[in-house]
């Protein structure tokens, strides 16, 4: 595989990519170093999911797309995922190119930055450099992380200054389109101290796309800041997605993360939250629904570094047909994080004999005066529950639907954005058929 890589993405190609985006030298060096590492490193070792035959390297990594002047030029299946009324802050990237963005003047005048990374790094280099790929992901961790760092293209940078509150969610959409491509989306979010913001990020592809998506979201939640972020992934059947989400939470800050891993193909989802500041609080919720031959391996980790930090991890998976998911939960309480409280629960509901699910909760505790708890379950729909519901006149389909939506309700019902909740409900219904 490393031979393919060297042929496909050589130093020249990466240098050209960096230059075409007018990137500073440090960024190019960052890329080249990662490129070199990528050829040496092996794929990540995932528990119970074989990925050695997944396509991670056969694609065109830098497919440029022309910008559009209005969201009306987007196809309906993409445009319905975003709201582009006056006053909405929107960023749309197609393959390697940011194609549409809008930021209301009222926000720009308060110092809010929401733009593609090339522009951001030209206009706010120090700010971008301070946070760029520093949320705890390591480029030399394995081949996929290194590849992302080397090949990241387009990408969005969101910065909300100190003490600024933005109610309306920022919307970012990354769209993989066409055959034989690879995309390397990157969303970098910085909430400065005492700011408040909401983000909805959509990661989508054309239904016929066989894209390889290797993307990362990094979020920095400043001291006493409050961030609510939801990312929804609905890539098509022939796609392979590796998604990294890294968050650093500051002192007395509050984070709510909702991850919808609802791809129709293959998914590696790797999420780590670092509770750095004391007194910080994080609620992390994940939902995955698999049908057909889908495979997903989802790891949700929370590292407590600060004192009196609290985290709550709630993950639900529903598998039908021959779909398989592995849910790993890791709550790690580091030495010094006294009075921390970390709880987690992963649950899988299987709807068919061939579906498979696995829930692996792990608690790692290096401090004495802490609280931690975990729960995990893997099971099938209880036929007696279905009998009970049907005995009141509900059809089998409606009864199953109630049980399934009841099962995911601890995640779904708490999603703060109604349109997103409807969107996720719609995808789940599509998957359940």
């Amino acid at each position, binding site marked *: 595989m490393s031979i393919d890589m060297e042929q496909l993405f050589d130093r020249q190609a990466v240098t050209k990519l960096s230059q075409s985006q007018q990137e500073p030298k440090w960024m190019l060096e960052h890329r080249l170093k990662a490129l070199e590492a990528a050829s040496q490193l092996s794929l990540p070792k995932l528990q119970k999911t074989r990925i050695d035959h997944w396509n991670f390297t056969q694609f065109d990594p830098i497919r440029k797309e022309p910008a559009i002047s209005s969201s009306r030029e987007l196809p309906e299946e993409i445009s319905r995922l975003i709201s582009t009324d006056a006053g909405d802050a929107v960023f749309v990237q197609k393959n390697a190119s940011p194609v549409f963005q809008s930021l209301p003047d009222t926000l720009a005048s308060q110092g809010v930055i929401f733009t593609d990374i090339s522009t951001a790094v030209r206009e706010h280099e120090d700010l971008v450099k301070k946070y760029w790929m520093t949320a705890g992901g390591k480029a030399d961790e394995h081949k996929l992380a290194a590849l992302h760092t080397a090949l990241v293209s387009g990408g969005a940078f969101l910065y909300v200054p100190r003490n600024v509150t933005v109610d309306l969610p920022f919307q970012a959409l990354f769209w993989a389109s066409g055959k034989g491509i690879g995309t390397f989306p990157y969303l970098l979010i910085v909430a400065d101290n005492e700011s408040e913001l909401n983000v909805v990020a959509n990661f989508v592809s054309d239904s016929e796309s066989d894209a390889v998506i290797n993307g990362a979201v990094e979020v920095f939640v400043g001291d006493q800041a409050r961030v609510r972020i939801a990312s929804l992934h609905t890539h098509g059947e022939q796609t392979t997605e590796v998604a990294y989400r890294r968050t650093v939470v500051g002192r007395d800050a509050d984070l709510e993360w909702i991850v919808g891993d609802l791809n129709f193909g293959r998914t590696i989802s790797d999420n780590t939250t670092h509770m750095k500041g004391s007194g910080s609080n994080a609620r992390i919720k994940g939902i995955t629904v698999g049908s057909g031959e889908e495979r997903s391996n989802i790891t949700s980790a929370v590292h407590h570094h600060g004192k009196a930090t609290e985290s709550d991890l709630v993950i639900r998976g529903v598998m039908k047909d021959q779909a398989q998911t592995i849910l790993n939960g890791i709550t790690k309480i580091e030495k010094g994080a006294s009075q921390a409280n970390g709880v987690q629960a992963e649950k899988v509901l299987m709807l068919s004999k061939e579906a498979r699910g696995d829930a692996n909760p792990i608690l790692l505790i290096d401090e004495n005066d802490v609280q931690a708890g975990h729960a995990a379950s893997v099971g099938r729909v209880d036929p007696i529950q279905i009998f009970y519901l049907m005995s009141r*006149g509900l059809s089998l389909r409606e009864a199953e639907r*109630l049980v399934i939506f*009841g099962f995911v309700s601890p995640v779904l019902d708490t999603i703060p954005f109604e349109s997103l909740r409807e969107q996720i409900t719609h995808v789940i219904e599509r998957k359940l058929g």
Partner: protein
Amino acid sequence: MATSPKLTINDLHVSIEEKEILKGIDLEINGGEIHAIMGPNGTGKSTLAQALMGHPRYEVTGGQVHLDGEDVLEMEVDERARKGLFLAMQYPSEINGVTNSDFLRSAINAKRGEGNEVSIMKFMKQLDKKMDQLGMDESFANRYLNEGFSGGEKKRNEILQLLMLEPRIAILDEVDSGLDIDALKVVANGVNSMRNPDTGFLIITHYQRLLNYIKPDYVHVVMQGRVVKSGGPELAERLEAEGYDWVKEELGIEDETVESQA
């Protein structure tokens, strides 16, 4: 439907895991009638209730059941319910994440059919009224279906569903077990409020106590998987006073259960 409901059970045989529990039950229940099925534990009373509703673990191996002339045994569970059969269960399931009121509204609408859904206002009014009648706190509407309910709360919730769904034939499976006297009265009042020519009742109990509050028209004693004795309300009173031994003696039954406890 204008006609009075009629449930007929002919020579019903039911097995669980190859073991025959019911060995030929015959009953006819008409609208306006209350039938009580009595008998000691392990004689097949609950099996009758579950089999009529179509519980997946119970296999009907012989006989017929008709509701208003239609073959019940050919119907799926939900179809039986939509045709007007209702079973208040002894051990109702708990369904996480589904609120009582959402569930009830789905059930009512399933019966009414698409395009004829009940208005939310009308539904809420009706629900408030019935919950009030059963002395249920308003919060029950928004609690998850039976989740964390006490035994008594579950029983009231079953009766609430009965009142809301207004079935043609209602089967109550030991709805009195585990209830204190006040709760028992509430449940009985609920049932009595539905006593009308459009509803027939089959009430399964092994205590006479419930029948002090719900006066049955007919009483049937089940032993060894069959109806061994039928009579009027006076039969229940005699069972209360004298127990079941005299029935066994009269019929020459030594062990009234279906072999070992079922």
